[in-house]
């Protein structure tokens, strides 16, 4: 390359924004407009009477407004959906919400364009073999086939301690709480713990972190701490793009107090989040454990820790493999032992391990700031998607415990949730293989018995052993020799129901999973609103109602539950999942009654009993009343008496509140006031106050009442530094990391269909450090071949001197549906042994220039009419077909 370094940098600076690369499409790609006009005179408004009488509804001129929550990240922004002449026409923020104060990001203000999008799935589609086209069928026929296939899969599989091994449910942090709750209830009542969901890819390590540090899941404080904090410590989160409305609050806090407030961003990549940062700590991917231990070491060495807080409210724990039985508990050690443990993480040692711009002095500076001011830490996937995700979560919380930065205004260790309902629906609703609703666990016989009693099903209905976690579940479908070797005793799965998510684009190292799904001995049911990379390998596609087309609750990052009522008529035959389950339950019960195997026959009764309380409501009004009925069972009976109690948060209260209710909210009175902002604090958290009284802890100001911590103290964990599963080497010399862009949500099946968003970012790209690009002769916009041990991508290059990854690292966004640009063919499926969350964020790769820049088109999976039914465009178009 005949181009000097200086000239190169100059050029790439000029092309910084330019190299964001292309647009080609402009919706014209499919020749359709973004929003289909409803047929003349058709009124799409369908607002329940109870909502119309509540503060969540208002009428202004020709506009009707209904209040709900945004579904495009875990923030939980409150929105008003405006319908003009009975058609969704505009979205605006709710000013009185303490979450977003009226502000919205581009996704939140534009999603009304999806209600009548022409690509919406509107009828149940079925095919016996994945080689045939889909044919429309009736709902009755669909339930008939699903019930038959479920029974067939149960019989093909085995019965064991985790229940039937042949059937699985894979849900989503975007499903409503009512939906996740009923799906998992359905599966447990049928006798299977194969219940998982995409929060395993997103929040599992945070759950593990809170469970070990607090003894119970979910954070202590909330967003309100941003406005009180002096230091905001952001680690492993591109908040500016992934939680834009929270970032706005941080920005406001910082810019209004430029001298007093400090923002520290810790990330191997300089992202838009750094625009207002005072310090950006750039470290080699996977060295965060060393960095955090070193900060703790400085805090102790310099005597900056809160002695009173540590002495009174904290204890120290360590897990030694082979010696300790329960990883969540480990064994207790002394402060001296902890001090000794962190003492080897000197700032000098950590700086050497971390590389980047980390110096011993910078570590000391950050440590002093952290310890001596009110600090809020926030993090997301950068910490969670790691093979030591739980440990690194513990290490951040350790800093807060050491410095007493917890349970005070402006001080909290706050793990941001990626999805709108990963907390509320899945973590609290029991949507993972090892947990049950209301913060219960499968392994605990008392917990199982409690639920069986509430549900009115026989004792022993819920199998005693957790089912398969996500990677194992999908390995039980691909079932290759390698999978069997990796998971000894693995039993195959023959039936899977994928709800509101697209795992065949979002799972790591997914080639073999896709090949498994393509086989005809696996029956795949997909419920979604648009065709996806997963529906293309389905047997049955069930059209479900979109947000605001059905009713239900989302629970966001800060333990806050909010209701979104129905406002818009769903298109075609699309129905809410709750209705589907209630119908299917009845069909399945009838069929099971005829089975010969007594174990199977006995399940007819339990599955009927599972849906029985909802049959009447489903008949009368599946859009509002059914959800309300399910919520009543969940909130008032299942969460009652648990730490995540929402017993006081009735639909009535949720309609009233401009910003929902934070649990614990044991009574309607507490819920009406918004619930509990500050958990564990005596006098502020009703459960802590009661606990103090009950246990005679009269002089305790803060109590860790987490069920795992019998000493009622917060635990500081001794966690050694450990690198990633696959560090770069001579053959694959680069770190590969992945993430999200503000415009697009996850796999882009929704945001890719909003023309403003798709127009700005029609396809993904690879970010390369200018020094690496220069070395490899890669120009902005050039197509780059990226290879890992698992797969390859061809991506346009973005090279920027202002933002981007550190030297030796590349970064790719994962929303693109084109076969050549789906980065999860390349990512690694190594997972955290505790949380089972895969290490999306780090693996080794190599890159080289593939071709000069050329215009690229957006690719979206769609259904097309062919002779004999429907096929996905990706099934027809060879260039997009996979597996080939």
């Amino acid at each position, binding site marked *: 390359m005949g181009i000097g370094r200086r000239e190169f940098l100059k050029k790439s600076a000029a092309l910084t924004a330019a190299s964001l690369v292309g*647009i080609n499409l402009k919706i014209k790609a499919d020749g359709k407009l973004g929003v289909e006009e409803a047929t003349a005179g058709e009124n799409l408004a369908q607002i329940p009477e109870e909502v119309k009488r509540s503060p969540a509804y208002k009428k202004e001129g020709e506009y009707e407004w209904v209040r709900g929550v945004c579904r495009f990240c875990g923030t939980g922004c409150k929105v008003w959906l405006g319908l003009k002449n009975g058609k969704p026409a505009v979205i605006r923020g709710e000013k009185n919400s303490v979450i977003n104060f009226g502000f919205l990001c581009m996704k939140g203000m534009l999603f009304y364009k999806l209600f009548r999008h022409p690509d919406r799935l509107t009828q149940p589609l079925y095919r016996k073999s994945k080689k045939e086209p889909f044919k429309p069928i009736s709902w009755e026929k669909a339930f008939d086939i699903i019930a038959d296939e479920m029974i067939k899969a149960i019989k093909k599989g085995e019965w064991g301690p985790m229940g039937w091994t042949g059937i699985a449910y894979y849900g989503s942090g975007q499903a409503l709480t009512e939906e996740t709750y009923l799906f998992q209830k359905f599966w447990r009542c049928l006798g299977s713990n194969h219940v998982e969901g995409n929060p395993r890819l997103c929040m599992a390590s945070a759950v593990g972190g809170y469970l070990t540090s607090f003894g119970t899941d979910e954070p202590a404080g909330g967003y309100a701490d941003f406005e009180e904090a002096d230091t905001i410590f952001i680690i492993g989160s591109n908040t500016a793009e992934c939680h834009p409305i929270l970032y706005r609050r941080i920005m406001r806090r910082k810019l209004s107090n430029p001298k007093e407030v400090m923002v520290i961003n810790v990330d191997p990549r300089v992202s838009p989040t750094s625009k207002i940062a005072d310090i950006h700590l750039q470290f080699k991917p996977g060295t965060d454990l060393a960095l955090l231990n070193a900060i703790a070491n400085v805090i102790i060495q310099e005597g900056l820790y809160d002695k009173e807080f540590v002495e009174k409210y904290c204890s120290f724990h360590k897990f030694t493999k082979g010696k300790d039985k329960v990883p969540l508990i480990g064994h207790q050690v002394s402060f001296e032992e902890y001090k000794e443990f962190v003492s080897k993480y000197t700032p000098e040692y950590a700086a050497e391990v971390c590389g980047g711009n980390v110096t011993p002095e910078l570590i000391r500076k950050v440590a002093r700031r952290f310890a001596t001011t009110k600090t809020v830490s926030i993090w997301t996937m950068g910490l969670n998607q790691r093979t030591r995700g739980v440990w690194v979560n513990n290490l951040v919380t350790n800093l807060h415990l050491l410095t007493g930065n917890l349970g005070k205004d402006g001080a909290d260790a706050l793990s941001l949730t990626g999805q709108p309902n990963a907390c509320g629906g899945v973590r609290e609703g029991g949507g993972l293989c090892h947990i049950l609703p209301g913060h219960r666990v499968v392994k605990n016989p008392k917990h199982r018995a409690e639920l069986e009693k509430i549900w009115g099903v026989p004792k022993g209905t819920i199998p005693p052993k957790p089912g398969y976690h996500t990677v194992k579940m999908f390995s039980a479908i691909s079932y290759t020799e390698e999978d069997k070797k990796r998971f000894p005793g693995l039993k195959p799965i023959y039936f899977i129901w994928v709800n509101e998510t697209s795992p065949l684009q979002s799972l790591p190292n997914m080639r073999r999973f896709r090949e498994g799904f393509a086989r005809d001995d696996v029956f795949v049911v997909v419920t979604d609103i648009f065709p996806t990379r997963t529906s293309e390998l389905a047997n049955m596609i069930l059209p479900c109602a979109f947000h605001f087309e059905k009713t239900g609750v989302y629970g966001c990052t800060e333990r806050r539950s909010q209701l979104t009522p129905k406002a818009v008529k769903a298109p075609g035959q699309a129905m809410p999942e709750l209705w589907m389950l209630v119908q299917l339950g009845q069909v399945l019960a009838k069929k099971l009654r005829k089975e010969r195997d007594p174990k199977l026959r006995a399940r007819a009764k339990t599955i009927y009993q599972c849906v029985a309380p909802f049959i009447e409501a489903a008949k009368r009004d599946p859009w509002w009343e059914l959800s309300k009925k399910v919520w009543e069972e969940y909130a008032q009976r299942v969460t009652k008496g648990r730490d995540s109690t929402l017993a006081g948060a009735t639909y009535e209260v949720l309609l009233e509140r401009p910003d929902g209710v934070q649990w614990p909210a044991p009574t309607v009175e507490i819920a009406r006031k918004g619930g509990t902002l500050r958990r564990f604090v005596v006098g502020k958290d009703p459960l802590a106050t009661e606990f103090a009284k009950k246990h005679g802890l009269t002089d305790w100001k803060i109590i860790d009442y987490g069920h795992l911590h019998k000493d009622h103290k917060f635990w500081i964990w001794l966690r050694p530094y450990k690198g990633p599963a696959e560090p770069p080497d001579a053959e694959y010399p680069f770190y590969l990391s992945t993430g999200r862009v503000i415009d697009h949500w996850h796999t882009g099946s929704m945001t890719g269909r909003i023309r403003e968003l798709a127009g700005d970012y029609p396809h993904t790209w690879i970010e390369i450090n200018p020094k690496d690009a220069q070395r490899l002769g890669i120009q902005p*916009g050039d197509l780059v071949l990226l290879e890992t041990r698992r797969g390859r991508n061809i991506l346009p290059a973005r090279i920027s001197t202002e933002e981007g990854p550190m030297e030796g690292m590349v970064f790719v966004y994962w929303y693109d549906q084109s076969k050549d640009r789906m980065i999860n063919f390349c990512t690694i499926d190594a997972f955290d042994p505790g949380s089972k969350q895969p290490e999306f964020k780090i693996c080794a790769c190599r890159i080289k220039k593939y071709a000069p820049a050329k215009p690229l088109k957006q690719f979206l999976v769609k259904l097309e009419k062919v002779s004999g039914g429907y096929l996905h465009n990706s099934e027809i178009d060879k260039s997009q077909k996979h597996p080939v």
Partner: protein
Amino acid sequence: MKAKVFILSAGFAVMLSSLSFADQHPLPPDTIRSLPPQQQQCRVCHQQVTPKVYKEWAHSKHAIANVRCFQCHGTFEDFHRTPPLTKCMACHYNEVETMQKNKPGSVCWDCHKEHIFEFHGHGVKKIKTAKDFGVK
């Protein structure tokens, strides 16, 4: 009170209906679509053709909070040289409402300079980039 509500809602109705009267972008959309893909995003071209406007935006709180051109000016199909107030109302509904009540007919940028949208003085002086942190 009732009359006030009526006037207000009538005002809003006029503002909302303005949505349907879109302008034409000076450079026709088809011409832009024929450009190399790297140059099709609004901010790429406008960095060159209207550097002052670009700089004002880039140093605004809007830019830090990732509010981009299309959120106010729309896309080609829905392009407005001067954005209708409805676009502001997605986030600043109450402010627009109060403004219409107190000074009917006024627009946000009467007081808050367009693209910067600061009440006094200028935008955010220092937007940090990689070179500010001594990173590699």
